């Protein structure tokens, strides 16, 4: 199955690095967003396998995106990718449903590893549909 990724970051250079790394690891880029509201809109439209999400963005931040996406899809796989590494911010992100966190500047290997874990976890969780088939 194709693994699709939504990249959310206001920094073009980070979107480029994530894109390049994910494509090299066999991912398809579903879309890119530059703030939290765009992230929600694109998530609902594209239904990607995973999301990389920055925290500090203009107008609507990462917390806004987390809240909106998780409300619409509690199974969403969101990897927070931020230079902010502060206890209160991270606690809030995980409370809202973030799956993992990587601090910027990040190691590309670690990014791929984390993305793979997210989709793997998703596959291992027995969904209602698979239970019915079984």
């Amino acid at each position, binding site marked *: 199955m194709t693994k699709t990724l939504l990249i959310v970051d206001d*920094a*073009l250079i980070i979107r480029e690095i994530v894109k390049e790394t994910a494509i090299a690891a066999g991912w398809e880029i579903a879309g890119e967003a530059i703030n939290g509201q765009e992230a929600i809109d694109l998530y609902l439209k594209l239904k990607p396998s995973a999301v990389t999400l920055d925290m*500090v*963005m203009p107008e609507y931040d990462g917390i806004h995106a987390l809240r909106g996406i998780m409300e619409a899809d509690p199974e969403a796989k969101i990897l927070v990718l*931020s*230079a902010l*590494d*502060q206890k209160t911010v991270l606690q809030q992100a995980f409370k809202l449903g973030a799956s993992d966190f990587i601090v910027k500047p990040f190691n590309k290997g670690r990014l791929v590893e984390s993305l793979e874990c997210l989709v793997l976890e998703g596959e291992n969780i027995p969904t209602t549909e698979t239970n019915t088939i079984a």
Partner: protein
Amino acid sequence: MLPTKTAHETNLEFLHQLFASATHDASAAMCRWTDGLITLSLDEVLEIPLEDVCSELNIDDELLTMVVLSLVGEVGGEMILTFDEENGRQLAASLLHRPVNREEQWSALEQSALCETGNILGCAYMNALTRLIDAELVPTPPYFIQDFGASVLEQALITQAATCDKVLICRTAFHREGEELNWRVIFVPTKKMQDLMEQELV
């Protein structure tokens, strides 16, 4: 008799230690971001009368490329990352793994490379300060600006100028393979942040 330090000098010394520790963390982040190329160290923590800031920092009407981050709120401040044209271009080129761009206009990707450098540095500083003073410090997204250095510094000083007649400034130096670069980070914390830091030092 040996000259004794005033309480004020002692506070500046403590603040220097606190910022040196934050700079250490920021240097580690910078080193990772530039593949080990660039490190930084704290130059000075200065308290300067408002009217002398530009001359003391030797920032006047030269055209600089700058990235500005703000910490909004009482416990806040301004952080400015400054480069001359050549150094800014070189950093962008090295981050993008491309030859140095000689076009007059900076490309969106070059601007983004510098902004993200500011973001990574600023956040690394704030992450360290958060651990030291137990406050949430989230900067605004970085703002790219090319203008007279003093014009930008002046606006960054406004919040401090509203409450004090002297401003506290941390100045940082950058190094590439031991050689000092013509880049600077200037951090101007608000009075409230200084007070919090001083409380932590007691």
